[in-house]
């Protein structure tokens, strides 16, 4: 299984927060959502999702709750807290800054 590249690893927090900001989900659903949205470009190892989730939870950015799934199974649903939304704003802002900077650099070299 190929490791996710460093850029993605560093922004995994941002991706999770963004996905959860749309709706509370459990770990499995998050990993599926990640794959579909990114068109299978972003490959996050199935296992490494959980340490990241636990880290976000310990930071107080997301909070977890055990609920029933549509198939009537118990699963741990995560949702974003108020602190998490602020963090998401901060991270997306810095992501925009970074990506637009990189885009400019890349275009510069093309010209």
């Amino acid at each position, binding site marked *: 299984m190929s490791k996710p590249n460093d850029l993605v690893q560093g922004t995994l927090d941002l991706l999770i927060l963004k996905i959860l900001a749309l709706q509370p989900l459990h770990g499995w659903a998050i990993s599926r959502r990640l794959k579909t949205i990114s068109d299978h470009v972003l490959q996050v190892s*199935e*296992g490494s999702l959980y340490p990241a989730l636990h880290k976000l939870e310990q930071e107080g950015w997301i909070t977890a709750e055990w609920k029933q799934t549509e198939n009537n199974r118990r699963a741990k649903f995560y949702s974003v807290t108020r602190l998490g939304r602020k963090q998401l704003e901060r991270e997306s802002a810095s992501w925009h800054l970074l990506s637009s900077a990189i885009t400019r650099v890349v275009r510069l070299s093309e010209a």
Partner: protein
Amino acid sequence: MRAEHWWYTVPLRLRSIFLRSRIDRELDEEMQFHLDRLIEEAIAEGLSPQEARNAAMRAMDGLEQRKEEARDMRRTRWLTDFLDDVRYASRSLRRAPGLSFFVVATLALGIGMTSAPLSMTDALIFRPYPVPHPGNVVTLTSTSRSSSFELFSYREYLDIRDHTKSYDGVIASGDFVPFGYSVRAGEVARVRGGMLVSGNYFSVLGVRPQLGRGFRADEDQVPGRNPVVVLGPDFWKHELASDASIVGKTIRLNGVDFAVIGVAPESFPGMQIFVRPDFYVPLAMARRFSTSANQDFFEDRNDRGLIVRGRLKRGVTLQQARNELAALARDLESEHPESNRNRGAMVRTQFQMRTRADETNWKFGVIFAVLSLAVLLVACTNAAGLLLARASTRTREVAVRLALGAGRSRLIRMLLTESLLLACLGGLAGVGVGFVALRILHRFSIPTTLPVQIPFHMDARLLLASLVLSLASAIAFGLAPALQSTRGNLVEGLKAADVEPPGRKRLWGRNVLVVAQVSASLMLLTASFLMVRGFRSGLGEGMEFAKVAKDHVLMASFDPRLLQYDAARTQRFYQQVAERTRQAPGVQSAGLTQNPPLGLEDFEAMSFVPEGVPMPADRETFNSAMDTVDEGFFDAMGIPIVRGRAFRRSDGPDAPRVAIVNEHFANHFWPGADPVGRRIHLDRRVGTPVEIVGVARTVRYRDNNEKSVDFVYLPLAQRPVSRMTLLVRAAAGPLTVLEPLKDIVRALDPNLPIVDARTYLTLYRYAAVDGPGVAINLVAIMGATALLLAIAGLYGLVAYNVSRRTREIGIRMAIGASRPDVIRLVLGKGLVLVAVGTAIGLVLGFALEQLMNSMLFNAGGVDVLVYLVAVPAMFLVTMLAAYVPALRASRIEPTQALRYE
């Protein structure tokens, strides 16, 4: 923002600590759910269940590792690990109960035996003043050529108070002196202790009376106008049964009615270490309590009897205060050359005051601290030795853990937790031992009716010190074994259960421990022997008189000032009481003194110029301690006159002035010549000439360890003093003359109280037996503890080392070694170690002995007895420790020994 963060995270942290297993279960479930979905997905894609499962596991990229990573994300990992370690440690300690008990007991003794002397050191050196912000309170002293710790006169105090800007306030207090106390007029006065203080004393110190008020500024302005008193908390509680209505009432002090205006709080027992004043009275009332009628306290700039303290203003440095005071002292010197020539002034912190170089308290404090730390050191090496021995039996366990992937630092943490646990148990038990030791110290009492306190007690700071000591010792004795046992070769460790790896490095640590233990305990023994001998030798020279006097002399003190006697009437009373006592049945002799040798008060000092003796260039007068006595004193006290004569009745107020000096004085100023007939001038060169008529034997005046000092006696008739003590020498026991004496006093004046009657034995016991007894006991107990610990540790280490060589011994015997060969082999090693330790111990002990001799005693010389006892004892123990297991080892069959683990 912060608060919100904690709102989310604190419950999570608490959950991770207290609901650990539940959280782990949830983690399992969560990941299992994910795994199940993966498998379902794979099966839906057409894989067999087994293949689907394998693919799913691969996709998880190491299920268990991911779980571990997730656990690591919880910030409480260190704590939960620590709790695991504690649980594991207590289990493993329970598995070796003997060893654990021994280590705990060793540490308990070490820490407990340390806390008692440390409390003494603390009281003598470190304990802060019992006031708010004690750190700002500094002491101001007058400095002269002979001493830089002199007191100030009342005038000087006013100058300092009014002309300095560095302080929030400057206070003055007199000495702790006896006050005659009675509830109302006509009642017989009793003696209690009190203190003259400046009107701002309580307000500047920040001490709020628990009842009533402190002094107003105007109550300390006009001499004699405001008889007001603030009571000490102990007096109020015990003497007045905490009567709250006392404020506003009057009590009689030295024959004057004083209005009680307040009661000092429980938290303020006074500013001195050893005494607790019962009364605080404004300085303006000083004439009522003045010891000398000849001097004018309020005007005389030479009457220096006030302790001056100041509270430094915020932001003023000590150096600024010093500069300011030094400038003021220079002004005083030019304004008042007759009293302040060559005088400076100094500001010091409490710590600097207590650690002044010539202070006995400081020396004792340091010596006790050093000795107690040495005991602790022995205890720690002991514990370290035992753990080291244990650690090597765990080589295999540690190797297995390392092989299974435990980090070295994690293992060291685990092993340290074990020693931490031991240290905590030891520290806890040590506090108990310390309590008991302090109890014993408290038993000894000072023979006086004055409220004197022994300052030893267990307080929070001492407990904290014990805790720190325990933790420090845990690291000290736990680190070495932990480092050593985790360093070993894995393969070797796994192969053999209990094998000493080749190489000397391992043994080296243990050998150092044995040597350290032997030398430290020898040093302690030397010190304790020396102190015991020093105190004992104090009972020799200069104490002959006291050995007789203790069984025959009764002392009775009088203070006719309590009844407002004038000087002439006081003189007449003393003459009569001494005369009549001499004629009473059963009385051999009687004499008067201000303060008997070994008495509880200090002697007055006098300055003088001996005639015909060249003065050193840098000084104008010499100083000597002195006593005022009558003609019967030398007989009654039993101090022989070796040349010339004693005082006579004819040495009256109008006769030529005479003095008697001691032998030390005579040899000091006129070595080899006869001092009788020579003259000294009191105060200054032009002062009153006094002829020396006799030389008395030099005795110990203040305590039995004192070095010989100059001493001068002046006759009472020529130097009237109001507070005197009558010494009555009885043919039989001293108490047989008590009733006759009471009758005589009643006949002279039925109202005059005997303020204090006791036998000389009480003084003797205090000076020579009880007081030093505490120190002797303490030091002896420490020495014995150290020796015991060292012997036990030594035995343990040597015996353990030998028993580990059982296999080797078996092999040696199998290939032909004889039993004596084996015993020689194991003994040799131990004896070499003890010999090295002894040599180091001898050097250290000798150094310590020199130091203590120069600081405390003039005993001198090396104590051979110590070494005659201690060195053979050490060797004997080593032999025994090696012999018993060696014998056992040599007895077992070689075939058994070879299988021995």
